[in-house]
């Protein structure tokens, strides 16, 4: 009878992904697969004893800030998986930060432990380009967040409506304003965001979660 730990290790050793298990209570690491260690350059023991100092060595600053929110994301996911992007330094051959996409799921069969599978964009097969686009959009979001913050509620409503393809008269009806007001808002939005095409607009809308799927 194989114990659960062995079972995890046997499977994870053969997957072409970085695999790690985290506690659902405080996200502490309880297992990393061999690929994790060969990629990141640390063993589980080193990570557990080294603590946050090691993390700040191999994880980019914005990604470090994301980790504490992962517990909240886990609860929100309510048993479903969720995906996040982080930038980590791999031990060899290049020391720069590379993007890693991690899919996380809490497994009831393993006492709610978080199973995390990490892959690079190139490992997503035909979705490789989509993943690269997602990474680009995440960067775009980082760079444009200050702009986004300064938008009024009206303006975000307008972005939503434009992204869904509504005409100026449709929008005027929906927002209970006149057509010329819509046109004025559009002009000011264009100037505020430096947007010059519908592609820019849709990019902004997707990055900042303003489209209904």
């Amino acid at each position, binding site marked *: 009878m194989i114990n659960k730990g062995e079972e995890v290790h046997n499977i994870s050793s053969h997957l072409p992904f970085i695999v790690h298990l985290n506690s659902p209570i405080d996200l502490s690491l309880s297992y990393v697969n061999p690929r994790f260690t060969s990629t990141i350059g640390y063993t589980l023991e080193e990570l557990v004893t080294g603590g946050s100092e090691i993390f700040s060595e191999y994880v980019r*600053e914005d990604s470090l800030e994301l980790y504490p929110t992962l517990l909240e994301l886990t609860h929100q996911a309510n048993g479903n998986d969720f995906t996040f992007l982080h930038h980590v330094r791999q031990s060899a051959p290049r020391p720069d930060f590379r993007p890693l996409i991690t899919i996380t799921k809490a497994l009831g069969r393993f006492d709610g432990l978080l199973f995390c599978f990490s892959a690079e964009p190139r490992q997503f097969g035909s979705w490789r380009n989509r993943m690269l686009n*997602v990474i680009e959009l*995440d960067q775009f979001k980082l760079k444009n967040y200050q702009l986004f913050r300064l938008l009024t509620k009206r303006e975000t409503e307008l972005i939503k409506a434009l992204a869904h393809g509504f005409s100026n008269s449709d929008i005027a009806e929906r927002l209970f304003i006149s057509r010329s007001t819509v046109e004025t808002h559009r002009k000011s939005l264009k100037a505020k965001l430096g947007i010059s095409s519908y592609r820019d607009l849709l990019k902004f809308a997707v990055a900042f979660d303003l489209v209904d799927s």
Partner: protein
Amino acid sequence: MTRKSLNVDGYSGEFPTSSLPGSIDHMIEAFKALDLYAKSTQEQFAQLTGQERRILSLIAVGHSNPDIAAQLSLSRATVQNHRANLRNKLDIKSDVDYVRIAVAHQLITL
């Protein structure tokens, strides 16, 4: 809502914890929806000629008809014709649809 100060990639600013870089689920959902849209428009898209696809890409990226005419060495009237054909073949109802369908079929990225 706590705000974190970040200095990343030459960019510095403040982020609320609910909106930190790295939370990408909503983007993945958006692209999944675009994948479905691609499937549902597969037949119409397959019927586009090479030139129509080229023109669709240029429209989607934001080029004007005169620009497109210059780039492809066509007359403006020809470009207008192609544009009308695209509207009919792909059932395009608004300008943003050009972008949506081009991204869905991976002609351009967002």
